[in-house]
């Protein structure tokens, strides 16, 4: 088992075959369809159509909303990770579970719950008007989509940040304080750089799903707000233009690859440190 190369190669072959057929070949097909027209001739037109006004608008909006969501997730999750990691409670594991538990619930149900809360005659507005406060109208706006993204992906940010922060040796923090660094200086010069790996993996885990979502924008944005995910989805499921849909997916893959490279570089750096 541990020594025989031949037996090992034999044992791994079902997996290699499986992943070749169901991961590599399908991805090559996205490339093929994205770079050909209906007649099968090579073309860049599908990919270039990202520059058309409505495609570009949906991509830029998706980038903007997922960027805002990622920043908000980070700003909420980092203090939480610090608090959780520094608390002396013996049941830290239980508490972290409580914070990420909603992640295990079906994500469409979670998003639907926000529809219920945000609706014009929804729960929040009922409470607001009961208190004689002005009602909110954020359903079917980009703000509702950001809220849905933050809510759905926050646990993905909490977990890696908590892991990174709790691995920092408390002695390093103490040393910094002993040498005269203020609370803020310690955070800025010690804690943040030492948790950079966790920050990068948290950002990746929030940004990519947020950038490529179409369900959150459909449910919370109504049909008014279209993200790049919605555009791709409609090419595959409504107008059956797989060439255009694949071409736009190739554009998305550029962002995924950038993300992948960034996290691979930070992983490698962490390992040499």
């Amino acid at each position: 088992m541990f020594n025989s190369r031949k037996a090992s190669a034999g044992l791994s072959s079902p997996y290699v075959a499986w992943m070749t057929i169901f991961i590599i070949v399908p991805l090559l097909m996205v490339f093929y369809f994205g770079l050909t027209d209906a007649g099968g001739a090579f073309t860049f037109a599908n990919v270039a159509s990202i520059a058309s006004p409505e495609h570009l608008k949906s991509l830029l909006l998706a980038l903007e909303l997922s960027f805002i969501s990622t920043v908000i997730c980070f700003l909420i999750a980092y203090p939480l990770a610090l608090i959780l990691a520094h608390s002396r409670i013996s049941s830290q594991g239980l508490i972290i579970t409580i914070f990420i538990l909603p992640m295990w619930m079906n994500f469409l149900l979670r998003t639907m719950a926000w529809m219920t809360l945000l609706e014009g005659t929804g729960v929040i507005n009922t409470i607001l008007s009961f208190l004689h406060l002005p009602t909110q109208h954020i359903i079917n706006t980009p703000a509702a989509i950001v809220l849905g993204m933050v809510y759905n992906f926050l646990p993905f940010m909490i977990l890696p940040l908590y892991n990174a922060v709790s691995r920092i040796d408390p002695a390093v923090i103490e040393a910094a304080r002993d040498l005269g660094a203020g609370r803020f200086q310690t955070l800025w010069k010690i804690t943040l750089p030492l948790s950079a790996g966790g920050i990068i993996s948290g950002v990746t885990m929030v940004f990519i799903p947020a950038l490529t979502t179409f369900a959150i924008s459909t449910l919370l944005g109504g049909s008014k707000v279209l993200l790049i995910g919605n555009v791709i989805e409609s090419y595959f499921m409504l107008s059956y233009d797989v060439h255009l849909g694949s071409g736009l997916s190739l554009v998305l893959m550029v962002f995924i690859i950038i993300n992948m490279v960034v996290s691979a570089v930070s992983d490698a750096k962490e390992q040499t440190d």
Partner: protein
Amino acid sequence: MARKTFEKIYMAVILVFMYAPIVTMIVLSFNESKSRAKWGGFSMKWYQALFHDSAIMRALWNTLSVALISALIATVIGTVTCVALMGLKSKSRAVIMGITNIPMINADIVTGISLMLLFQVIGFKRGFWTVLISHITFNIPFVMLSVLPRLKQVEPSVYEAAQDLGATKVYAFRKTVLPDIMPGVISGALMAFTMSLDDFIITYFTKGVGFDTLSTKIYASVKKGIQPEIYALSAIIFVTVLLLLFFSDRIPKWANKNKQET
């Protein structure tokens, strides 16, 4: 002191943000009135309606069978592959781990449409089988990431000793290696199971017409307007998740304990 209070308030606010939607759904699932803004008294009628909704029940059955079968197959393939990885040259190991990382890093929408294209091109009618294959595909990496760290800690010498003493390869593996990696295998299987239960995007693109899991069913119905039965469904799912998490925390410990006793 002020700092501690502030920390407590901060955690409480986030918890409210995380749980308010879930609590709202659970409360509304018992609401007699169909209105979402008015409390019409306690009622179990949405639960009854849910269990009589044959489309949702079929979707539930589909979800569970896909999750169970895909988790089982992914666990077998994933574990076998991890064992094989240990004996491979580091170069081929790196290639295999590279492939394993693709579905984890790639956006679900790209994985979904790429599989949809594959099934379309080879003329495979989409339905139960295509969804099952897709779920196995994205589940294997989760199993491997859970089994591999365990396997790296295993001492090969015990396995070799067992063989020297006359055990067959399979018997020696079953008796020396498998018990050591079992907690990893079980948590990998549970991980795969929950990933499959929760998946929407990949299922959506690979399911075809007429086959639905709970996720795709919920998506289709919520697009038309929320039915209170779905709240009842949410409440049931939430309680199930709580139980599952409780057991997934217990089982590896229990397996560990059992191993130490024998």
